[in-house]
């Protein structure tokens, strides 16, 4: 039947790596830290690969390996530690462990001189642990554990260079904004529990299947709450503000967490709960609107950024918008497909940017770069592959996945579908433009900073670049046309999605044409750039350069009032009233009662005598009245006549 796949090893190996490196890492020699850190993801990848092999050899999916270990048993709430492997989680795991391993290798070279070397790898392994838990989880609560955990790992890694105030602030911002999203997620989980009685995905799916007429209403509310969580984790409107700041972290972290894996958790979650979203057309529409709006919004901001990592950050937000759009038109397989190809080329883009930054000794401003084509050839060619992929040129990976989404939007038939298609198309134009802008500014032309002599990076960093470039080139071919079938029931794929191939080809041609237009415009503007920004004169430049003042808006409307209220509560209510009041009260009581009792100590012998007599009389009275009852309480029963 089902051979045991040891799925539980997948999260536990990185966790072991985290524990060892975290506790002992400071005292271990560097080579040992590296070895431990690399073995964990590699071993996890091996287990996943084995599972993939077993699948292709005919093992049944979904493969549920519940530890069948009851976690919570409280009234109506019963939650197990159960891990489930199906096609969807298999794809995610391959990406996480595979790309994760490559980024680990890259980090060996990138973080080589850092004092917190062991801490970095410990956190990275911790992240892998939580991410795999998130993906493997068979119920919403376990997924939430992974959900929160990756947020924690992200915070730790963004603020890795914690002595830098901006890095520490960015870490806090990421965590807090995520928290807001997580609030929505939790509400969704509560509603799920209230309406379905169970948090296990298979249970919920079964219950829904048994009620074919149940649509809308509470299901929409649940989906919107879950969507709120997804916007936080996947940096969509309105909770995207943490992702650009997250670039304060080391570049491999940006590649792994904020490009390939963590930010995709939101998309994964929607795909995982597709059976819920399918029942609520309104929720799906909202998802699509959020995705399309974010894609456009972020792309416009990315047009005018000067920091190479910021451009990539906004690009990530924009591409995530595409994935949400794909899910929003119920083409979950297209969304996941784009997730996979995006993992390849975005990770590659970040790593190559890291290589550039490393080679230039820390310079991140594109206006100061230029002409690196000759000085860093391998980086140049791999990055070129990535740029072509993200712009959506045939035959690179991005072409297939982006097209799948755009086609699905168009083919939906509704007016909104066509609007989404158009927005997606326009965003593709912008994407092509700003990516090639980046490409020209960084690599082409003459070096704008003659003092900087860039050197090519070591092969520990270049190796992963090359491998990812191969993925960016060939990744699309893996899934073209077949991805939906492969994912099958895990995303509710129905073969009827395969529509007219003629329409598909037409749309693809349009998309490629649009990408070429973008390249052309970039070529005209940036080919021989001397460092001035040609767009600076364009109307609306200031708005874009200030990122629509969203951060300032949030700061004024949300952050400042909360800080003011907190300060007020802390200083006046807690400090002054409660603590001060308590101290004053206690002291007052003591002093007051002391002043009263003091009068008893008069030194007057006769009053003492009087009180003595009174006390004796009281005892006597008590003895007369209730002597027997008192003794009975003590356990002595006397047989006395009278009293």
């Amino acid at each position, binding site marked *: 039947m089902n051979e045991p796949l040891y799925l539980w090893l997948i999260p536990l190996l990185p966790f072991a790596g985290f524990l060892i490196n975290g506790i002992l890492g400071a005292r271990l020699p560097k080579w040992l830290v590296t070895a431990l850190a690399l073995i964990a993801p590699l071993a996890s990848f091996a287990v996943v690969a084995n599972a993939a092999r077993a699948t292709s050899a005919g093992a049944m999916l979904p493969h549920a390996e519940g530890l069948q270990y009851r976690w919570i048993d409280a009234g109506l709430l019963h939650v197990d530690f159960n891990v489930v492997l199906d096609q969807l989680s298999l794809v995610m795991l391959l990406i996480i462990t595979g790309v994760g391993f490559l980024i680990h290798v890259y980090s060996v070279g990138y973080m080589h001189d850092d004092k917190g070397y062991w801490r970095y790898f410990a956190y990275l392994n911790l992240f892998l642990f939580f991410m795999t838990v998130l993906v493997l989880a068979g119920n919403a609560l376990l997924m939430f554990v992974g959900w929160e955990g990756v947020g924690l790992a992200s915070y730790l890694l963004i603020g890795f260079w914690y002595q830098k105030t901006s890095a520490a602030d960015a870490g806090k911002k990421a965590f807090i904004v995520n928290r807001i999203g997580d609030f929505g997620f939790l509400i969704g989980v509560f509603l799920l529990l209230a309406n379905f009685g169970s948090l296990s995905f298979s249970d919920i799916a079964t219950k829904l299947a048994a009620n074919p007429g149940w649509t809308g209403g509470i299901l929409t509310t649940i989906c919107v709450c879950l969507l709120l969580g997804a916007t936080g984790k996947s940096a969509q409107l309105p909770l995207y503000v943490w992702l650009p700041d997250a670039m304060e972290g080391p570049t491999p972290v940006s590649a792994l967490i904020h490009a390939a894996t963590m930010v995709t958790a939101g998309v994964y979650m929607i795909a995982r709960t597709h059976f819920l979203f399918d029942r609520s057309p309104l929720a799906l529409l909202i998802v699509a609107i959020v995705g399309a709006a974010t894609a456009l919004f972020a792309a416009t901001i990315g047009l005018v950024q000067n920091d190479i990592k910021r451009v990539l950050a906004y690009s990530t937000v924009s591409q995530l918008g595409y994935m949400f759009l794909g899910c929003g038109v119920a083409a979950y397989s297209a969304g996941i497909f784009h997730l996979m190809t995006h993992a390849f080329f975005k990770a590659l883009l970040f790593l190559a940017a890291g290589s550039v930054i490393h080679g230039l000794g820390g310079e991140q401003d594109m206006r100061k770069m230029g002409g690196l084509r000759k000085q860093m050839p391998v980086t140049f060619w791999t990055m070129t592959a990535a740029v072509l992929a993200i712009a959506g040129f045939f035959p690179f990976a991005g072409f297939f996945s982006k097209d799948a989404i755009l086609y699905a939007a168009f083919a939906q038939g509704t007016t909104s579908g066509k609007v989404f298609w158009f927005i997606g198309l326009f965003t593709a134009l912008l994407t092509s433009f700003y990516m090639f802008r980046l490409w020209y500014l960084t690599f082409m032309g003459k070096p704008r900073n003659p003092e900087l002599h860039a050197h090519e990076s070591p092969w520990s960093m270049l190796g992963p670049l090359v491998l990812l470039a191969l993925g960016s080139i060939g990744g699309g071919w893996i899934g073209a046309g077949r991805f939906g079938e492969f994912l099958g029931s895990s995303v509710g794929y129905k073969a009827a999605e395969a529509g007219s191939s003629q329409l598909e080809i037409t749309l693809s041609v349009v998309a490629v044409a649009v990408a070429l237009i973008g390249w052309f415009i970039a070529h005209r503007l940036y080919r021989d750039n001397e460092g001035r920004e040609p767009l600076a004169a364009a109307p609306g430049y200031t708005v874009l350069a200030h990122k629509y003042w969203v951060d300032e808006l949030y700061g004024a409307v949300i952050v400042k009032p909360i800080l003011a209220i907190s300060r007020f509560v802390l200083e006046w209510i807690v400090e002054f009233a409660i603590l001060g009041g308590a101290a004053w009260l206690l002291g007052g009581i003591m002093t007051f009662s002391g002043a009263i009792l003091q009068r008893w100590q008069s*030194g*007057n012998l006769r009053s003492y005598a009087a009180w003595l*007599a009174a006390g004796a009389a009281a005892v006597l009275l008590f003895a007369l009245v209730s002597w027997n009852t008192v003794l009975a309480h003590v356990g002595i029963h006397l047989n006395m006549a009278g009293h």
Partner: protein
Amino acid sequence: MIPISWYLLLSATLFCLGVVGFLIKRNLITIFMSIELMLNGVNLSFVAFAHQWHLVKGQIFVFFVMVVAAAEAAVGLAIIIAVFRARATLAVDRIDLMKL
């Protein structure tokens, strides 16, 4: 034939008179004498009950009370003398400071 309760009543009266004297009187020595009165009242009670239950132990109790009262009187009067030396007064109202 006299009921024992009469002896007991007498004893109670003597005791209460001793209490009154203890509370009312101003002279230290008189207060002390009231205490002796109280003790005697109690002694009478003991002897009465010893007669009632035909127990010798009751009388022995009185014996010990007498011994202790004697010792107490000796020491107490010595204290009164010492207080008088320090305060030059025997009025209980005037002796109201702990420090001598």
